[in-house]
């Protein structure tokens, strides 16, 4: 069966510090991968998605970036965090065939202070 992992689960970082969140998927090959952010009490905002290694599509211009160094690994980064980067970050995967059912990881709660 497929599983998706995210770490860390929670993170408190000062403004201006760097960020690296990691997501890995097991049990599937060549998945589509997604990064979402959810502010408190709000819906999900799609940040990035990837259909293959090294292929990243950005949905919202901001100080975040994403990379996919391996087939089942997706990394979200920032060089300098802003207060507005606080939120619940979710990684998801889906198969690339037909309409997509996305499967979400446990999420990372990021607080920028």
């Amino acid at each position, binding site marked *: 069966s497929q599983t998706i992992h995210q770490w860390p689960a929670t993170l408190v970082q000062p403004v201006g510090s760097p960020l690296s969140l990691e997501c890995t998927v097991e049990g599937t090959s060549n998945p589509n991968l997604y990064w*979402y952010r959810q502010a408190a009490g709000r819906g999900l905002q799609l940040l990035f998605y990837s259909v293959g290694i090294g292929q990243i599509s950005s949905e919202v211009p901001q100080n975040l970036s994403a990379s996919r160094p391996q087939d089942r690994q997706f990394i979200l980064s920032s060089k300098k965090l802003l207060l507005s980067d606080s939120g619940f970050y979710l990684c998801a995967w889906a198969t690339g065939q037909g309409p997509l059912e996305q499967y979400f990881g446990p*999420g990372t709660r990021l607080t920028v202070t």
Partner: protein
Amino acid sequence: LAKTTQPISMDSYEGQEVNITCSHNNIATNDYITWYQQFPSQGPRFIIQGYKTKVTNEVASLFIPADRKSSTLSLPRVSLSDTAVYYCLVGSNNDMRFGAGTRLTVKP
């Protein structure tokens, strides 16, 4: 991208059937309709997906009229554990966007 409109919140009681309607007037020919459920501090969970008419699984039913400009998620005999936010998404491939969702509260 087809924009979706859902009620912000709904209340129900245990044992009742709950119907949540989503409007998507500009749905495209190749768009599918997908519903997710989200509990606090968790990622959304896929519930059901359809293209037209009716789809049923062990959790819910999805009703889609012929013009596909709306859809209704039906939850039979809800329990307290069905209290969550429910999202309606319309799109295809990677063109899927989460709206604000409907916050369903099930009361005893």
